[in-house]
Structure formats: structure tokens, C-alpha cells
């Protein structure tokens, strides 16, 4: 049984197949509308996240399946003190697949060790967010036509931004990738990502403080929000939340085919005047997120691709 806990749980080839399937779904969604009929997805969200939860539920409904679950910890048995291990053993009896978001790092892995059905990590604290990474990869692939030989700028909260960590780990497996890490000193990428992923893999990277200076060389600009919920200290949050704001003026220095990605929600780090720029890819990302989650659910449940079957005939 396969789970999706860390983006590296899938090989490069498996991710390639997943993105191909997502692309196929994107071209003809109706062909997939009954693929998961009678299957159930449980969304266990110990931390509120309307966007990711709705994306998972939309994905399952688009496949003809059903959804159940809870949207926050205080309406679940976790509020009574039930462990993750016990909860997943119970939910395994109700659903065919589980998507879990939890504020504690490693909770979905803990769940996977006790689950009888596939578990998808829908975000665990500041740690990993693999389905956002798959969404990012699909968006990059569709925008740039490739996942290799790209200069990727990551901007904002690179310390607690789990989407950033997952994206770096995954993109580091492709050839010719270069990272430009743009953040204030306090929100730098954690040392273990630098040492174990970038330096260990010989991946070129630079750490800079200026978004403006980095802009001209980027193929992809990945913006992130400074997340209030990751700070223990309100003062630190207030001091850093306006660190980097992308505006139409700053976009003038960017390549004409650069793509701006953002995992959303944004607060003020991308000004509204960037939204109409054709290089803004963040709302497209949201739609891609549904397609890639559909592809992931199909893959983990071992559901055959109806289009591949037709082509085979």
C-alpha cells in the first residue's frame, strides 16, 4: 500500500506519470467523472484549511467518489484526547483513502504507520505539504514545458514555509535547477535543507535579501506568505510580515515568460495590480491542484485510467 507523506515518496518517474495523468484529466475531466464511484475520501483536518480541504473534496467528487471527515480539531475526537494512531485505525474502517492535515510535524507519517488505507499528507505543521508541491510541479510543467534547467526564486518565509521545503526537495532531483533563496535573515531556509538537500546534492543556490535584484534571472518566482500561526511571538510576526511585497513595478524587471506562483492564501505579499499580468500563475495553480489531487487519489487507490484503457483498445 502506498502513501503520500513526503514528496520524495514517489520517484521522479512516478511523479512524471502522475503529472501526465493530471494533464490528461485537465484536458478531458468528464472522462474521469465516475472513476472513483463508491469510493470514500476522509478529510481529517486537525487545523483549519478551507482551501486544501475543498480542493481534496472537489477532487474526490469530480471522480464520482464521496467525502466525509472533520474540518478542525475541536469538532473531532482529538478534542477528547484521542491519539492520531487510534483515530486513523477507526477512520480506516470508514474510508478508502485519507487526507490529513495536522499542526504537528510528522502526524501523517504517524497515521500511515497504523492505517489500513492510503494516507495523504495534506500539510503537517511547518514541515511538508506534498500535494501543494505536486500542484506547483504541474503548474511549472504546464507553464514552462519542463521541470529541468530552471532558475527558481523562492521569496518570503522560507523558514516555516512547508511548501518551500517540499518544493526544494523535489525540484532538486531535476537537472540544471538553480535556487535563489530570497528572505530576511530570520526566515532563512532551515539548515537541514541547505546541508542535506542543496549542498549534499551539489545543487547551486544563492541566499539573497533583495527581491528586486534577483528578479531578472528568475524563470519561476515562488512567493510565500509570512504565516502568523507559525510564530510563537506576535512581535516577530508583525516585524517580518511586510518583508517582501511583489508589485507590478517590480515585475517590470522580470523575464517576459517568468511565472509567478503562490500557494495561497495571500495577505499582501502580492499586490492586486500583479493579478492581471499574464505571468501571474497563482489562480491557475488552484485549478491544477484539483487535477493533481484527482490523479493522486486515482494512483493511490490503483484506479485504472479510463482514457489509457480506451487508447489501449
Amino acid at each position, binding site marked *: 500500500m502506498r502513501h503520500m507523506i513526503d514528496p520524495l515518496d514517489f520517484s521522479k518517474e512516478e511523479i512524471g506519470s502522475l503529472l501526465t495523468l493530471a494533464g490528461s484529466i485537465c484536458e478531458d475531466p468528464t472522462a474521469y467523472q465516475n472513476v472513483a464511484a463508491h469510493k470514500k475520501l476522509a478529510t481529517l483536518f486537525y487545523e483549519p484549511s478551507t482551501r486544501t480541504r475543498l480542493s481534496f473534496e472537489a477532487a474526490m467528487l469530480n471522480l464520482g467518489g464521496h467525502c466525509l471527515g472533520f474540518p478542525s480539531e475541536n469538532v473531532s475526537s482529538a478534542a477528547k484526547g484521542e*491519539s*492520531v*494512531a487510534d483515530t486513523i485505525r477507526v477512520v480506516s474502517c470508514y474510508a478508502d483513502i485519507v487526507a490529513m492535515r*495536522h*499542526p*504537528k*510535524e*510528522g*502526524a501523517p*507519517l*504517524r497515521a500511515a504507520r497504523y492505517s489500513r488505507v492510503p494516507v495523504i499528507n495534506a500539510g*503537517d*505543521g*511547518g*514541515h511538508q505539504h506534498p500535494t501543494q508541491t505536486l500542484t506547483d510541479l504541474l503548474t511549472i510543467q504546464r507553464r514552462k514545458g519542463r521541470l529541468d534547467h530552471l532558475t527558481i526564486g523562492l521569496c518570503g518565509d522560507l523558514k516555516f514555509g512547508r511548501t518551500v521545503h517540499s518544493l526544494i526537495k523535489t525540484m532538486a532531483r531535476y537537472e540544471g535547477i538553480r535556487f535563489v533563496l530570497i528572505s530576511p535573515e530570520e526566515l532563512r531556509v532551515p*539548515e*537541514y535543507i541547505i*546541508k*542535506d538537500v542543496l549542498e*549534499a546534492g551539489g545543487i547551486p543556490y544563492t541566499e539573497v535579501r533583495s527581491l528586486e535584484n534577483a528578479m531578472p534571472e528568475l524563470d519561476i518566482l515562488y512567493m510565500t506568505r509570512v504565516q502568523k500561526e507559525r510564530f510563537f511571538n506576535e512581535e516577530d510576526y508583525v516585524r517580518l510580515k511586510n518583508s517582501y511585497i511583489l508589485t507590478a513595478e517590480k515585475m517590470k524587471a522580470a523575464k517576459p515568460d517568468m511565472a509567478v506562483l503562490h500557494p495561497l492564501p495571500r495577505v499582501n505579499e502580492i499586490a492586486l495590480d500583479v493579478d492581471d499580468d499574464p505571468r501571474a500563475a497563482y489562480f491557475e495553480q488552484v485549478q491544477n491542484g484539483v487535477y493533481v489531487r484527482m490523479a493522486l487519489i486515482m494512483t493511490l487507490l490503483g484506479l485504472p485510467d479510463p482514457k489509457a484503457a480506451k487508447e489501449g483498445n
Partner: protein
Amino acid sequence: MLNIDEIQNGIVIDHIKAGTAVGLMELLGITQNTSASVALIQNARSAKSPTGRKDIIKVEGDASWLNLDVLAYLDPNITVTTIRDGQAVQKEKPRPPRRLVNIVRCRNPRCISSIEEECDQIFEMSSNGKYRCIYCEQELSVKPE
């Protein structure tokens, strides 16, 4: 020099950092074992140790129940000598284990292992030789004393 009888069969854990053997006995499960014959020597003179002192643990008889892998993690200078019929038949430095289970706790307050009941504390060696919590991937930086 304090004299402790030589053991005929068993193991000698030598070159332990002075003052840490009591904690080590706890981690190795020696203090919980009520039948093993064990000698602890603290602050023995040592020419090799930079402090000039070391601790030694001698375990008489069958020592297969000891998890010696943990020694390499705790102190790379430790040696383990196997004694048979009064003779030292093997002397080695234990190799670092691939994983540490319930030896140390993850110190990351954001880690699931910090709140989940009955959750084993598991660290695995990463590609750079450092141990990381399997749940949150935080590097293990503090060794128990």
C-alpha cells in the same frame, strides 16, 4: 589504583567519558536488569582521555541482551572488549546504528512525538551521518549525559 576482579566471561565497556557511566547504564538497560553481575568503575585513570579520567563498566556472563549499538552514538571513543575464559578475544568500537529507538526524545515542540501517547522516539541516520527524527526530521543535537 582501585582493583576490581577480572571477569572470566562477559564484556568490558571501556573509555567511557568520566562521569557518564551511570546515565549510560540506564540507557543500556543495565539498571533495570536485576540478575546481571555488573561492576562500575568511575574516574579511573586514563592515559588516552584528555581529562586523564574515564569510566568502565564490566558485565559478567551473557551480555547479548545489551543494546550496544547505542554506544557508538553516545560516545565514539568507547570500546567493547569480549572476554572468554579470562582472555580478551575481541575488542571493537561499536558502529553507529542506522536508527535509535527510544534512546533520546525529540526536542522539537512542533513534532507529533511530543504529544502523541505511546509514540516511539525514532531517529534515523541521514546521508550526512547525523540523526534525524523520522517524524519532523529535526536533527538530534543533544546527547544525554
